[in-house]
């Protein structure tokens, strides 16, 4: 049945064609020859798992951003020219402000649905970046970045960076007090760059901060340059996805050589299309019910005003936290100033974090020496060190994120602002390490648990009393499907140093890199639990059967759920409270496990 379907994708597509469709298709194909490409794509298979749809949230949010963004451009004036407000919002009437701010007020108060579109645009920007983060974490945790997908992983990270830049540019456009404060901080960061800082600042702002240029320049960046790059990279990201086909979870019938799931037309067209409307709808509901960036409350930007709780949007929170947690180091050398207090949090740390993330697939591939193609995902527990690394990164991010909102934490929970910062300064170094150790131990424990399930079965809840009067819980072998799933993974390749002396007693040259690699490999995989070999598995089951035989009187027949494997155990009985060791319980329902 399965095999029959696997090869009929083309045929099925033909069967569905009605003459009308065929007519249009012929017309198009006569001019484009697209049928060659389309024939395999129309029924292209996508595997089904919720975590495969996280990137889709980002994709659809991007579409919502384009749609709402176009609406906003119809009224927004990207100009810092001064005007006196005379719109509907009474509390700012007669206040001098930039055209940008005035037109944003106009969109919010004098264009019907304008406020909704503005809020949807802002919410979907937050969701766009958040979804990219979640998607990236999924890819990382499951090892989906391994060969052949390293390039797509890197494109994804670039998309994330561009998305953050795009968000910051958009945050700055309304020229309200908050966005102006953000630009002021950006200006401070730029000025701190050694040698050229003040020049860069003057060029960017078209003179001294705030100048009269930055809004129109950021506007071009925000609606043309970065969206163009985003679109191109998203296109490349999707093309590679289609060409390489999606990864899938290992399972019965799901191997490294196939992809099992539902066809693009109709199931994924409906599911993904439906998800687009869902994302759009959730964004619209958020835009309608939850205020975001109430620019009318902030007032126009002037450099002598500021508000408590001046914060960037969440995705810049890590940079904000870094700035806040950084000790006040500054070097004065030969008449020049190096502002470590700004450079380290503003440039160095984000740069290092991004580079490490970007290079991670290659670092891991170098350690494993693995050049194979991987299309099956790994469960996070089966790559304990990688999982722990990501958990450590998330912890680091979380600490800095919290520190970025330290004033809000202090206000809401009545904590001591200064202590939060002192704590963050320590936690940035300590917590990721603690998180790493815990996560790795946790993963290995989970691996051990899987191993136990494989070798000794699951705890049935049946307490057996031996003739000697000792009690023991009976373990029942798991089903073959589950057993296959648990074992459908690689053995970890721990790289061993070649022997120092070869068989002829000649000292083998071992490079420093080789030694480092062996050490890292040991660190990465040394403690992992490897899946049992077939012999070990057989031995364990024989042992279990033997134990059971000893314990029961040999009339019963074990029946473990969907267990139909080749290590069926005769002469034993199973399951729950109804089991008394003397009755045949084959027809009894097994308790869910």
């Amino acid at each position, binding site marked *: 049945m399965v095999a029959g379907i696997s090869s009929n994708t083309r045929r099925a597509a033909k069967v569905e064609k009605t003459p009308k469709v065929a007519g249009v298709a012929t017309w198009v194909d006569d001019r484009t020859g697209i049928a060659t490409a389309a024939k395999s794509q129309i029924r292209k298979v996508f595997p089904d798992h*919720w975590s495969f*749809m*996280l990137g889709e*949230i980002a994709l659809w949010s991007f579409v919502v951003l384009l749609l709402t963004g176009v609406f906003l451009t119809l009224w927004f004036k990207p100009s810092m020219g001064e005007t006196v407000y005379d719109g509907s919002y*009474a*509390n700012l*009437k*007669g*206040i001098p402000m930039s055209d940008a701010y005035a037109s944003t007020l106009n969109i*919010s*108060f004098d264009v019907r649905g304008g*406020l909704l579109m503005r*809020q949807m645009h802002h*919410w979907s920007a*937050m*969701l766009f970046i*958040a979804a990219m983060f*979640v998607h990236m974490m999924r890819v990382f945790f499951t090892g989906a970045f391994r060969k052949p997908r390293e390039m797509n992983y890197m494109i994804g990270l670039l998309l994330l960076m561009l998305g953050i830049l795009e968000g910051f540019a958009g945050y700055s456009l309304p020229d309200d*007090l*908050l966005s102006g404060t953000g630009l002021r901080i950006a200006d401070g960061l730029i000025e701190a760059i050694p040698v050229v800082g003040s020049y860069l600042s003057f060029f960017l702002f078209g003179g001294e901060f705030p100048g009269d240029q930055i809004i129109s320049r950021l506007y071009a960046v925000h609606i043309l340059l970065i969206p163009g790059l985003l679109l191109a990279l998203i296109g490349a990201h999707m093309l590679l996805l289609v060409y390489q086909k999606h990864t899938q*979870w290992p*399972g*019965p019938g799901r191997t490294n050589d196939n992809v099992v799931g539902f066809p693009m037309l109709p199931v994924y067209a409906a599911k993904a299309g439906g*998800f687009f409307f*869902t994302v759009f709808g*959730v*964004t619209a509901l*958020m835009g*309608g*019910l*939850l*205020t*975001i960036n*109430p620019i*009318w*409350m*902030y*007032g126009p930007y002037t450099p*002598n*005003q*500021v*508000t*408590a*709780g*001046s*914060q*960037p*949007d*969440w995705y810049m*929170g890590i940079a904000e936290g870094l700035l806040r947690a950084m000790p006040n180091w500054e070097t004065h050398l030969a008449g020049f100033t190096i502002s470590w207090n700004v450079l380290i949090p503003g440039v160095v740390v984000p740069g290092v974090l991004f580079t490490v993330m970007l290079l991670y697939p290659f670092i891991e591939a170098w350690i494993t020496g693995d050049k194979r193609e991987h299309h099956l995902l790994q469960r996070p527990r089966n790559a304990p060190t990688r999982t722990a690394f990501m958990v450590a990164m998330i912890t680091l991010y979380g600490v800095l994120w919290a520190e970025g909102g330290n*004033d*809000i934490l202090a*206000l*809401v929970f*009545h*904590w*001591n*602002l*200064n202590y939060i910062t002192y704590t963050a300064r320590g936690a940035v170094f300590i917590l990721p390490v603690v998180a790493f150790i815990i996560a790795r131990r946790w993963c290995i424990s989970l691996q051990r648990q899987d191993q136990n399930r494989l070798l000794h079965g699951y705890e049935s809840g049946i307490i057996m009393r031996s003739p000697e009067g000792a009690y023991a819980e009976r373990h029942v072998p798991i089903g073959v499907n*589950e057993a296959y799933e648990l074992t459908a993974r690689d053995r970890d390749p721990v790289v061993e140093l070649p022997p120092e002396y070869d068989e002829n007693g000649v000292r083998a040259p071992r490079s420093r890199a080789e030694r480092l690699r062996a050490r890292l490999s040991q660190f990465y995989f040394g403690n992992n639990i490897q899946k049992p070999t077939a012999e070990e598995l057989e031995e364990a089951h024989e042992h279990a059967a033997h134990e059971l035989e000893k314990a029961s009187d040999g009339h019963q027949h074990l029946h473990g759920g969907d267990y139909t494997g080749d290590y069926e155990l005769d002469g034993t009985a199973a399951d729950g409270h109804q089991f008394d060791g003397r009755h045949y319980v084959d027809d009894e329902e097994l308790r869910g496990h």
Partner: protein
Amino acid sequence: MTKKDIVRPRSLGARLSAKRRSPFAGFVVLLLGLLVSGGAYAALAPASADTSTTSQSAIEHGRQLFLVSCSSCHGQHGEGIVEQDGKTNYGPPLIGVGAADVDFQVGTGRMPLATPGQQAAAHPVTFTPQEIRDLAAFVATLGPGPAIPPKSAYDTQNATTEQIVKGGDFFRTNCTACHNFAGAGGALPEGKHAPALTQVSNKHIYEALIIGPQQMPVFSNQVIKPQEKRDIIAYLNSIRDMPKYGGSTLGSLGPVSEGLWAWVVGIGSLVAFAVWIASHTARSKKKGA
């Protein structure tokens, strides 16, 4: 300016006397007018606060209350109690703080303070309005200080749009740095915080501006004029009363709470949808993974 303030109570008196036909009404209203205008004068000239209009019995009552509730920290004559290190105050001296200070601190429940700490926060008020008045009258006798402002000083009923706009500008220049753009409050060093202004009465905001309670700086009437203070209060009232144009305000705490909502509600609900989309329908109860 002073003229204007005196005119207001009279017109109020006129309205009151028209309603009340008691033969004493005119007299009472006149007395009230004198009291209020006296208060207004005192507010404008805090250095020479006049306490003669307050009866001696009220002051005596206030003194009794003071001895019972305040003197353990502030000293029997409001001279303050200095800690053993000779520098810090256990309770600061109250000489010259004026009636406005008492009305603010006691009227918002900040005083009496159960335990001295970083900051005295607002609590349910322990004294009756009459007791607060008497207590204020007593403290006002300790030394000249700002009097309790008359209602006309902070009544924003008739504020014009122009005044509200002006108040907004003053608010953003002088107040938002600590109290946040919507008056939702903000954090200060070492566990202190600038309280939210949304639940604070007009009178207490006015008083806080002239007395500078705790860490809050003073905004004297010479620098921020009484009219400008009233404008600030009018702006605060206007943003409190205006419709929530964009839906729930999420606490008006800025992007931090917005980010929290984006993750919890936005990403949370969309991931829930993703789980639903990929989940198998009813029959697959024995799903492998």
